[in-house]
Every structure is written in structure tokens, then in C-alpha cells.
């Protein structure tokens, strides 16, 4: 009788140990690519973006290496300063500035105006800054305007990056706000984003993102490091 009680006890101990071992946190396999989310890093980057862009932009090899442009309806902006990282060249908008910045540069208008700029200047990265103030009405179709703008960049070998505006109420109660629209378009187009809630952090985040894109999408030595020279916008 004593032996059988001891056996039951032993079985229970062994079973509970096995259960505990099964419940213990396993060492997670190391992620293939760094994961950055908007709420923590202030920009998005992940394996899905890398894989999508490796298969399109990097493969096309159409762009001029280490060049980038910043444009969109939200530029120029005194709160967003664009600092050019070491080893990179900022592509000026020149004769395209009127159509690629300011109120004319809605995503729908960008679709008409961007192709010539992309074909001529061949930037490697194109950062698109959306509206930075409330008031404009958004529409159901706007998500496609944003997504197709990103696709357009990819078609010309440029890697699109969307600025994500702070959330402000949509002018139309039924419509989605711009932050949601651009975020959803970025997911659909598999392109990275940078949060513009703290515009003073824009350049720092862009440089971090550029370094990740160089390393993982273009698979080359990282040159993007912050420097002091400033172009466009205001000072941080």
C-alpha cells in the first residue's frame, strides 16, 4: 500500500514537472529582420516590408544609389527639418517643387506629377509627407491614392516611405481620419512609415530607417549616419 502511494506521488511529481517544462518560456528564435513599430520606435520596419521591397525595388536597381527626396502636401514644413545623413544625397525637387509640395501635392495629384520626377531624378528613397493640419475631407478612395502613390514609386525603382500625420478628427464624421488611411495604405503597399507626432524626431528616425533599408533591403554596407547639415524645412 505504501509503495503504491509513493508511486502515485512520484507520478504526480513527474507529470507536474513535465507540465511546468512545457509551460516554461522557450527561447524564441531570433527574428530574421528587426521589427520596429510606430508606437515604440516612431517608425515601422519589419520582415514583410523587407521581403516585399527586396523583390521589387532592390531587384529593379533603377535608382541612383544613396539618393533621397522628401515631398508631399505636408512639405515644406517649418517643424520638419530634413538632415542629410553621411554618404547620402538629397534630391532637390527643382522645377517639380510646385507640384510635388504644398497644397497641389494631394496624393491624387502626385500620381500625375511624380512619374516625370522619378524618371528624371531616380531617387532611391522617396519620403511622402501628408497633410499636417485638420480640415481636408477624406474619401473612401483616398486609401487607393496613397497605396498607388507608393506602388508608383516602386515601379520607378524608388522605395516609398510615408509620413504618418498626428490623428485629427476627420472633417466628415463617416470618413476615416488621415492617419488611419495612410497607415492602412502603407500596410497594403508594404512600405515603411515614420510617425510625425513629434516632427523634431523626423530626421533621426529617417536616418535609422535608412540604415535598416541599406542593410536589409539593399544588402550593402550602412552609410546612413546623422550629420549636422540641414536641407529644407526648419531647424530642429
Amino acid at each position, binding site marked *: 500500500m505504501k509503495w503504491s502511494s509513493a508511486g502515485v506521488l512520484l507520478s504526480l511529481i513527474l507529470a507536474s514537472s513535465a507540465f511546468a517544462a512545457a509551460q516554461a518560456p522557450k527561447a524564441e528564435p531570433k527574428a530574421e529582420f528587426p521589427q520596429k513599430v510606430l508606437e515604440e520606435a516612431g517608425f515601422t520596419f519589419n520582415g514583410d516590408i523587407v521581403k516585399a521591397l527586396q523583390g521589387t525595388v532592390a531587384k529593379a536597381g533603377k535608382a541612383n544609389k544613396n539618393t533621397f527626396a522628401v515631398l508631399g502636401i505636408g512639405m515644406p514644413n517649418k517643424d520638419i527639418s530634413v538632415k542629410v545623413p553621411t554618404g547620402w544625397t538629397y534630391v532637390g525637387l527643382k522645377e517639380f517643387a510646385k507640384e510635388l509640395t504644398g497644397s497641389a501635392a494631394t496624393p491624387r495629384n502626385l500620381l500625375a506629377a511624380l*512619374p516625370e520626377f522619378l524618371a528624371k531624378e531616380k531617387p532611391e528613397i522617396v519620403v511622402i509627407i501628408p497633410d499636417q493640419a485638420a480640415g481636408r475631407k477624406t474619401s473612401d478612395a483616398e486609401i487607393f491614392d496613397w497605396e*498607388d502613390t507608393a506602388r508608383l514609386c516602386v515601379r520607378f525603382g524608388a522605395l516609398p516611405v510615408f509620413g504618418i500625420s498626428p490623428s485629427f478628427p476627420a472633417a466628415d464624421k463617416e470618413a476615416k481620419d488621415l492617419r488611419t488611411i495612410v497607415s492602412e495604405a502603407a500596410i497594403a503597399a508594404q512600405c515603411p512609415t515614420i510617425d510625425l507626432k513629434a516632427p523634431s524626431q523626423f530626421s533621426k528616425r529617417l536616418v535609422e530607417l535608412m540604415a535598416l533599408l541599406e542593410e536589409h533591403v539593399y544588402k550593402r554596407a550602412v552609410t546612413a549616419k546623422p550629420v549636422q547639415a540641414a536641407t529644407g524645412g526648419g531647424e530642429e
Partner: protein
Amino acid sequence: MMRLSILALLLSIIVVAAEEKEEKEPPFRPFPEMPEVLFFDGYEAGGHSASKGGVSDEQAEAPSRKSLKFASYYQTGMHCTGSFGRSKFPENLNPNQVFIQFSIWSSDQGKINVYFTNSKAGVYTDAHQYQKEKKWQTVTFKLTDLRLNNKPVPADTLMSSYEIRFTPRGGEAPTVYMDNFCITANSRPELYMGKIAAMQGKTADIVRSGSKEGFNYTQQGNDALKAALKSARGAKRRPNTVLVIGGKPGEGEAVVKALQAAGPKAKVSGYTFVAAVSPDQSAVGGLEDVRTLLPYNLRKAEPEFVLMVFSNADGSAAGRNYDAVKASLERALEQGIIPIVIPPPPGGKADSFIGGVMRYCGELGAPCVDTGSVIKPVKDSMDGAELAAPGLEAVCITALQAIKHTEANVKK
């Protein structure tokens, strides 16, 4: 400081004036001469609102020539689904004064469940009984009869889509038809049915059906096109110029040649066809380029029409690609340019894409070639899943007829 104040005052006046102007834009009505009619679908031609269920002329006693035949839903249940398109309601109208009516026929008695969806709030429902069996029954109710969590539809919301389910009394799936789906404000739908029927009779020469003439064209679509051209008045357009985007990269030139060759057979002449291009000289064509390069080409070519050809590969790609086509149709219409759409040949995964594209064309008024019907009698029309030269010739002849018909009717 004084100047700044004056400037600010002027700016605020301009903003207020702009807002007032924006507010004054009248809401869409399917029959502008009957502003009380918020939505109507008699399922007469290709441009109907339904996404599930098919237009049928099997029911000889239907209130109008054609009706909507329900599709199978679950076990013996039948249903239809659809979109209200540009009809927006209640949009601050009193929901208690918004009336909904449709006629329904079933081979068995049963229960009718009505579902109206608001994209944010969710689905509002109401239930009715069908007791006549093999006879047409008119169902009429108010918008406030529809409930979500026992709450009625608020005034400041918009309904986007509908579903009507029929659950039969017996154990077999019945045949169910629906017709004359009408939503009105402030007075009951039956007051307008006669006038609508008369108007539809008058416009019979405008309407074209994919199964008969090879392309879909409706009175509502014609009105929508006229409205689009009116709001884009002043935009620079090159008369009789047609921009062409082929179904595959580099196919545009081949379609242009086919259109030019088809002219005498279609008895259509006087149009200039321009193939879409890219500023980097790369080959252009297919849905991806419709999405990305259409606005650039519209600006460059300044056409009156844009012919969009889609391939089976476009239609078979994963996802709701027809939503992206809708955005492209809107981009053209916004500039007063009329899109003419050639969907891919039917078959396989492309069928869902074709259905979605045809539905959006109907909503927006864009004439749409019924590729399947057009190539059906044509020998050797297909090369694998795509159009062969004889098939392309046939759809080009129909596309030219669609362009001519559209031009004749929108410019009336």
C-alpha cells in the same frame, strides 16, 4: 497689424464661402427630376447594384422586364447582396420618413430578412413574411424599422450596402426573384413607380445590355457621365482622342492597331487612339499600370475617353483588385474623361474580378464591354486564358460602338 487683421478676415470669408459652396452641392439622386427617390434598382441592365444574385428575364410576370434572381446562401436559404453606390441615406433626413420597398417572388412561402450595413456602426436588420407563394408580393417598411441592438438607424449616418435573405418554409431551396427595389424620402415609393416605369420606357433606346449589344449602358450611368462632364467643365480635352491602356505591358500599341482596323467593321471613324506611355520608356499595360500611370497619361494625352483593357492575369491576382479599378475609374471621371472598360475573358479566378468591375462600372456610369458575351460566337477567340487576335478584334469592334454610343448620348 491692421493689414494682417484684414487679411485674416478676408481669408475667413473665403473659407466660409467655400464651405457654403461645398454644402450646397446637391446629393446624388438616381432621377434628378424626382429628388424624393433616394435609390432605385429595377435590375434592367448590366449596371445594377447587386453583387450576389443575377439579373434574369425568366420571370415573365415581374413588375419590370428583368428581375434579380437570388443566389444560394446557406443550406436551403437564398439571398442577394448589393451596394447603394452613390445613393446616400438617411444623410440627416428623418429616418422615420425614409421608405423602403421591393417586390419579391418565391416558389415557396418563407421569411424575408433585410440587412442594411453602415460601415462603422454595423448591420441593421428587419424581418418580414412572404405568404403568397409563386406570386409577386410588395414589401414596404420604414428605415426606422431596421434595428441594431434594438436601436433604430440614426439620422446622421449612411447606409452603404444591403443583403436580403429568404428562408423557405419547406425543406428545399426555392427560386426567389426581387424587383423594383426603391427607397424614397417623405413620401411612399408606390407614388413614383409609374413615373419611373414611364421614364425607363422612354430611355430604352439609350440602354444597352452586355448579353445583347455586347456592352452595358444605363440611363443612370448616362446621367452620371453627364454630371461628371459637367463638373469637370473647362478641363482641356483633345476632341475624339482615346487613350488606350493594354491588358499587358507593351500591349497598348497592339490594341491601338486593332481599334484602327476595327473601325470600318464597327462603322465608327474619326477617333485618334493614343497608347499609354511611361516617362522612363518602359512598357505599359495591365492593372498595375492603370493604378500607377493612368493619371500621368490622362494629363499628357488630354483624351476624351480612356479605354482600359484588363487581362486574365489582372483578374486572377489575389485580393479585391476591382476596388482599385473603381479608384481608377473615379480618377478619370473626376477630370471629365469617360472610361470604357474591357474586362478579361471569363474563367477561373477572374470571374469575381469581372463581376466587381462590371458592378462599379454600373455605379459610376462607365460603359463596360461584356467580353464573355462578345467572344462567345467568335472562333479561336482565346489563346490560353487571354484574348487571341480574333477575340481582340471582336472586343475592339464593341468598344468602338460603346464609344460612339456614349458620345452620342452624353453630348445630347
